[in-house]
């Protein structure tokens, strides 16, 4: 982060060595301190809100804390062993995987589709961009509660379906439709953000490339697949990463819409972690689950980062 200017060698050798060198060192030290002062707020924030909690979670992972009795006991690797014998964990991880895949595929596909559609100039472009982006700035709980009403058995969606003679399912009370419902609610909540990122990327694609392809006889789909998509692939990578991380951290939608049910069908890892730590008062095991989530996010991000070399096209 520091910047150092180098003096031409000839000039440097002309200066008296002792005092000049001392002055240079003093300047450099001042530069370094200034640099650190600039990054200090960010570093402090990360240390206090990321590293310290991470350290504490790693520490709690080896303990069991009975909050009511006020006891804090070292249990070694008991919580980690429990992780491998937890009968609910496979169902929880499966629900997490289904949710993540559903959200990533739904969000990225829809966001890209909307961005391509709204990248053209027509009368209501700004209006539609605003409409699709507005859920991003709405409170997640308010958004979810409204969807909760719509998805009730006697709610708005089934009311609409009845108008066309369809007897809708009990969306939030049956396993497959409950998962589909929380995925759709999450997709519509955040699709606007990815849409804006894709719009920005699409506007950065040089027009001469697409025009040249068109002159060469390429159709719209071929131009999109062979020129547009590779050109915006860095943005695709970014959106995939932030969407996966966001999907893995979903909580409010599950808590408000399904409370993890029916059965464990929508109990994703973060919600299960919350139940263990804050409802069942198992802070030690909750910390172990938090570490598991951290490892999953880390591994997925590293894998995507490595795989980017195969499909992400950088112009420079």
């Amino acid at each position, binding site marked *: 982060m520091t910047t150092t200017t180098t003096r031409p060698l000839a000039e440097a050798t002309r200066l008296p060595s002792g005092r000049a060198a001392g002055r240079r060192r003093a300047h450099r030290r001042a530069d370094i301190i200034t640099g650190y002062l600039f990054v200090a707020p960010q570093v402090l924030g990360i240390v206090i809100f990321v590293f310290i909690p991470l350290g504490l979670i790693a520490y709690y992972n080896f303990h069991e804390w009975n909050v*009511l009795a006020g006891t804090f006991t070292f249990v070694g690797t008991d919580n980690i062993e429990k992780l491998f014998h937890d009968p609910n964990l496979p169902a929880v991880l499966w629900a997490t995987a289904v949710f993540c895949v559903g959200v990533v595929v739904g969000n990225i596909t829809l966001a890209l589709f909307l961005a391509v559609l709204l990248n053209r100039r027509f009368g209501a472009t700004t209006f539609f961009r605003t409409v699709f982006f507005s859920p991003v700035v709405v409170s997640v709980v308010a958004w979810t509660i409204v969807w909760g009403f719509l998805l009730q058995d006697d709610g708005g969606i089934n009311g609409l379906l009845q108008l066309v003679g369809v007897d809708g399912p*009990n969306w*939030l009370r049956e396993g497959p439709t409950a998962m589909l419902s929380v995925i759709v609610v999450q997709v519509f909540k955040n699709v606007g953000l990815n849409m804006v990122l894709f719009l920005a990327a699409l506007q950065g694609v040089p027009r001469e490339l697409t025009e040249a392809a068109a002159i060469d006889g390429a159709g719209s789909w071929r131009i999109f697949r062979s020129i547009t998509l590779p050109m915006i692939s860095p943005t695709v990578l970014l959106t995939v990463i932030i969407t996966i991380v966001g999907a893995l951290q979903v909580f409010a939608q599950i808590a408000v819409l399904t*409370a993890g049910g*029916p059965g464990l069908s929508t109990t994703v890892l973060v919600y299960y972690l919350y139940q263990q730590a804050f409802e069942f008062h198992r802070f030690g095991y909750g910390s172990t689950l938090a570490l598991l989530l951290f490892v999953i996010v880390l591994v997925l991000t590293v894998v995507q980062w490595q795989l980017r070399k195969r499909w992400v096209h950088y112009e420079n």
Partner: protein
Amino acid sequence: MRSAKWLTAAGTLAVASLALAGCAGGPAPATSETATDIELRMTVWTSAEPHLALFTEIADEYMADHPEIKSITFDPLDFASYSSTLTTQIAGGNAPDMAWILENAAPDFVSSGALVPLEQTFADTEGYELDDVSDAATKLWRNDDGDLVAYPFSTSPFVVFVNNDLLAAAGQPTGADMLADGSWTWDDVSAAGAAVNQATGKAGFVVRDFEYQTWDLLSTVWNGWGATPWSEDGATCTMDSDEMVGAFEFLHDAAFTSKSMPGPGTTADFFAGESAFTVSQISRASLLADSGIGSWDLLPLPEGPDGDYAMVGQAGVAAIAQGEHPQASADFIAFFTNPENSKKLAQFFPPARESQINAETLAAANPVLTEAQLADVVVPAMKTGVVRPSHTNSAEIQQTVRSALDAVWLPDADVPAVLDDVCTAMQPLLGG
């Protein structure tokens, strides 16, 4: 380079020291009770202004005689997440001095040592008359040593409110007539509810606050079949008993066949005129005034195949051991729940004191109810009602059973098989 190393080392040291400081926190030791300027805080789950005004009035009266108490605040928490919020406050080193405790969380709080024994403080308080509180009312709130660690300030019976307007619209007799005719059984209620649903589109009967989540509220129904969720010693699951299967088959039929009970995902509020019957605690009677219901009845829980029964819901108030002023808190609770204040609190919270469980005291507190309704329905239920089921590890049992029971709330569910699965899931949590 050296600076970077220095910063890294300092950062590591800061993380480690803060981590150790955080972990070494643990429970705060109780401070000496000779302190002055004591500030007490009680967590409650009501935010109703008349309730808080009454608490403040009692607190002001107490502080007038106790100059060492600087303030007493009542801190309303959301009811739905009350127990977990309270636990989180304790975990975060922000334990309240006093707290209301829900009956279903009582075993965990009572057995853990989280609550301060109160019996000696009550005994030392002049005119407290603890003997006036029945053993049945305090049973849930005694620890393994037999010490009372919370006072049951609210003993609210479950009753049935009946909307006679809806029954009349469906050509059904009123609730009072059903009782008088000897046709006040669950089957009769379900039949009348189904008729209302068919004739008006409104719901038949609703177990208030159940919402296909809080399954233990169904104890207001299954007790009529003589069913219990676990054995008397709490060690064995009995959700798969014949009695429980009978009760759940009745409920399943009501939800999916006769449609006398709203199905999963459908809501109906009795006090908005949306259902003919509701099982609820008597404390909800205050909602009748604004309900718009012209004619209503208040009746005891209907008879089940196992005969008559009554149920109460309880709430306790306790001093938290990890609070800063446990003895000052215990002293205030002794004042807050003494006979005089218990009578004041009775206007909102049915008392556990035998001398106050009478129609006269309750009538002063419940203007919408007649003395006859109180004498015939409320007082007998308060005296004979069994407390809603509770068990240690209540949160996990609640969640595990809720999750396993979801399979019963489908139209083609195999009720006995699902209840077998419920026991398979619940048994390891009972510690038997």
